[in-house]
Structures are given as C-alpha cells and as structure tokens.
C-alpha cells in the first residue's frame, strides 16, 4: 500500500537537480551480477536505482509444444513478469496485458542480437522477474536479459542495453524514476546494440515536440552506451571469477 508522505512539489529544482539528487543526464546507480542462479543455463541480476530484476535463460532446448519449433532458427521466447510484492499495491501474479506486451517487445528488442539461425528447431527461453519496480523496468529487464543470454554462451552480435529518457517539468532527463515516470510529460524507452548502433526497442508515451524527441533519443543512446560498458564489466568479472575458481594460468 502507498503510504502518504510529504512530497516536494517540484521534481527538478531550479538548479536542475532531481529528487533523487541526480543531474538531468545521469543514470541511477547500477549494480550488475552475472551467473547468479544455479539451475539456469545463464542468468543475471541487476539493480538500477530501486529496480531489482532477475533474468534467466534456459536453452537452447527442445521446444514444447513441438509444433512451435521453427525449421530455420531457434524460437526465442521471453516472459516479463512482476513479483506480487514488487509494487505498492500487491499485483496479482496472473500476467496482465501490460506484462504480455512487454514480454513481446523485449523479445523483439533481443532477437536482433541473437544468432537464432544457429539453432534451428529448438527454443531459447528467457525469463525476466521484476522483484522490485521503480520506473523503467522494461529497460532494466532487457539489460539483464541480454547478459543472461551471453552468460548462457549463446552467440550474439552484441549485448543489448536499454534505458529511457523523457520529459519532466519541461526538461529532457535520462532514466526516469517512478515518480518522474508517473508525473512527467513523456517517456521514451529505447534499446541499443551499441557496436552497430542498432536501435531494437523504441516506444514513447506522452507529448513532446520533434526537437524534444530527438534530444531524448540522443540522451537515451548515451545512457545505453554507459550501461553497455557496465554490462561488459560485469560479464568480464564473472569470467575472472570462474578463471580463479578453476585456477588456470
């Protein structure tokens, strides 16, 4: 349940400082861990601000039901799901229309990165569980999911990094938190494969001019590039940990 608190009236101060102390072009603090679940073939955990998301990959594995198998490539399946305790009012665990749509758009954001044609007739199943939601969960989920795919050893063209930019009290800001998301004027979530500059997810809601939109896109692209660097770092530190465990020179 939402408990009323005294809320400041403005989301951004005169000096351009946001409620959580960030500048307009700053991401929330990010923490990423790769290879966090025992059963999954690949997994990743990410915290971005108060968002907490777990992603896991199973596969390539046999497709069930069989008739869904594709003759020329792997079937990539994605499920975006929120834990009942991830939001203020308990959310029913049954998938909502929003979750169904996000499952689809995350799949379409990730599929361009995966060499699905290497694995005909099998499935690669991706599960994203939002443990705590605080604005921008689709981006956070995609960032985590592409790491889980890489952790599963699935050949990819690039990692996919995603984040949003938007318009809040007339300013273009990066990585909206939940209050900015709810009370702001517009929100543009975007996913990017930075090595090829390929945008694989783009949505927008709210109202902005073309100029503002362009500014927001550029800001989101910058955010994705920063996240991409953090993704690579997290993936590397997992391999270093594995190497140390094995004790190889």
């Amino acid at each position: 349940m939402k408990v009323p608190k005294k809320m400041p009236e403005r989301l951004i101060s005169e000096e351009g400082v946001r409620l959580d102390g960030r500048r307009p072009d700053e991401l929330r603090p990010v923490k990423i861990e790769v290879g966090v679940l025992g059963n999954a073939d690949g997994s990743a955990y990410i915290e971005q601000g108060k968002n907490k998301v777990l992603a896991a990959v199973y596969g390539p594995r046999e497709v069930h039901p069989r008739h869904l198998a594709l003759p020329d490539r792997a079937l990539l399946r994605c499920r975006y799901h929120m834990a009942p305790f991830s939001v203020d009012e308990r959310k029913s665990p049954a998938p909502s229309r929003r979750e169904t749509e996000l499952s689809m758009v995350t799949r379409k954001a990730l599929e361009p990165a995966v060499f699905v044609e290497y694995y005909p007739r099998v499935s690669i199943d991706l599960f994203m569980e939002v443990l705590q939601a605080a604005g921008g969960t689709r981006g956070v989920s995609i960032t985590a999911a592409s790491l889980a795919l890489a952790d599963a050893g699935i050949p990819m063209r690039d990692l996919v990094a995603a984040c949003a930019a938007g318009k809040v009290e007339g300013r273009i800001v990066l990585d909206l938190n939940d209050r900015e998301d709810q009370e702001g004027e517009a929100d543009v979530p975007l996913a990017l494969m930075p090595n090829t500059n390929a945008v694989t997810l783009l949505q927008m809601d709210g109202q902005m001019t073309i100029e503002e939109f362009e500014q927001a896109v550029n800001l989101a692209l910058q955010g994705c590039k920063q996240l991409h660097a953090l993704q690579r770092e997290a993936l590397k530190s997992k391999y270093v940990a594995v190497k140390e465990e094995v004790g190889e020179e």
Partner: protein
Amino acid sequence: MTSSVITARVKQKQIAQLITGGKRLDERGLTDFRPIQLETAIIERAEGSARVRLGKTDVMVGVKIGVDTPFSDVPDQGVLTVNAELVPLASPTFEAGPPGEDAVELARVVDRGIRESKAIGLEELCPVPGKKAFAVFVDVYVLNHDGNLIDASALAALAALLTTKVFNYEVKDEEIKIKPGYTQLPLRNQPVAVTLAKIENKLVVDPSLEEEQVMDARLTVAFGKEGKICAMQKGGSGFFTVEEIMEAVKIAQGKAEELRKIVVGG
C-alpha cells in the same frame, strides 16, 4: 546445455546406498540441514521481505498489506493469504501459467503453519468488523529449486513476517484512512517447518532435489514456539510406519528449534 533434472540411475543407486550406510552424497549427516543464508528487508516496496538460501535452493518471500473485506465467518479478523509462484526461471521443469498442484501444496503447507500456530494476530487487523480488514499477502517466490522448497519457504515467510510493518491508520465513517508511519505486524508465534524424506527405510532431513527424486515419501512437520506441532503434511507415493512417524516428529522438533534460532536469534 540444458540442466537436466533427471537423476541418472547410477546416481540414484549411489544416493540410496550411501544412505543405507548413514551417509549422503553431499557428505551431510542424515539429520543435517544444508548451509542456510538469510537476508531480510530486501524489497523496500514490500511491507516485509526475506530471502533464504538453503544450499542451492533459493526462495524469496514478500509480504504486502492491503485493505479488504473480512470473511463472513470471521468478520472480526484480518485476512491471511499465502500464495506460491514456481516461476520458470527457478527450474527447467517449471512452466509459466496458473499455479499447478506443487505450487498450491507449497502455499497451503506454508499457510497452515502460519495460520494454525496463530502466528499473526489477525484479530488486531480488523479495524471495522464485518466491513474493513487488513489483508496480509504472503507471496512465496521460488528463484532456484534444489529440493525442500517447503522448509526454505516457511523459513523465509517467518523471517519476512518478522520484518513486516503495518502502516498507521485512523477509522473515519467506517473507512480506513492511511496515515504516515508504521507499526510492527502483531506476531504471536514463530512456526518453523522441517521436512524429512524416507529413503531406503531411513529418514533424512532437508532432502536435496536429487534425494527427492529417489525418496519413497516425505513428511513435513511444523512446530510453533513452545514445541507444539502446528501443521503436518505427508508427501510422495510411499508410506511411513507409525514408528517412523514418531521418530520423524522427534527429529523435526529438535531441528525446528535450530532453524528458529537462525531467524529469531538467541
């Protein structure tokens, strides 16, 4: 590439043979739990939360408080709902969709321990009898399945309830008005579940997933604070003799005390 959940027959035989000699695959004693790690208050959005790692089994529990109508047969009490989700990221055998019988059993066994031990002071959670009550949602979220989900979930549920806070409120015209600030959820008891598996006519505590695949039957016994049994559940297609049941209950009672100390301290 996919992690297999089928235990090879040679391994099954090995598990059974070891247990006959009083040993286990992971070198535990027959009545030892796997190492337990506990974290609490990890989901700030939830009114209470905890995560328990029992070996490689990994369970998160979030508690949410809402406002609901009390049940007509107990119009002066708050409403307790326990739900379990076996989300597909936890195991290659879990599928998305409405809870299957395993998830429902898990939720109901955890529920029974909490409800029957009268752990939550539900009568304090009904500000407008017959009309407005608080609903306590205990959501069990399995993140990695490596056996004995019941004990891990019950422990995480207790730990989460111990951290649960209820928002302050006032009653105006039979409506609940939420005010800033919180108080602790009234907790009267601390139910802890202990599960034993029967393998080769021996009882082993805290079965791993591989042991669960070999076991003939399992028995879960939940204990409240003063060593009173508050819930039981027999599972698996095998059977227990009365002697085995009494032995299991005695082992479980000792183990329950050990587990409770991890959550409650002292």
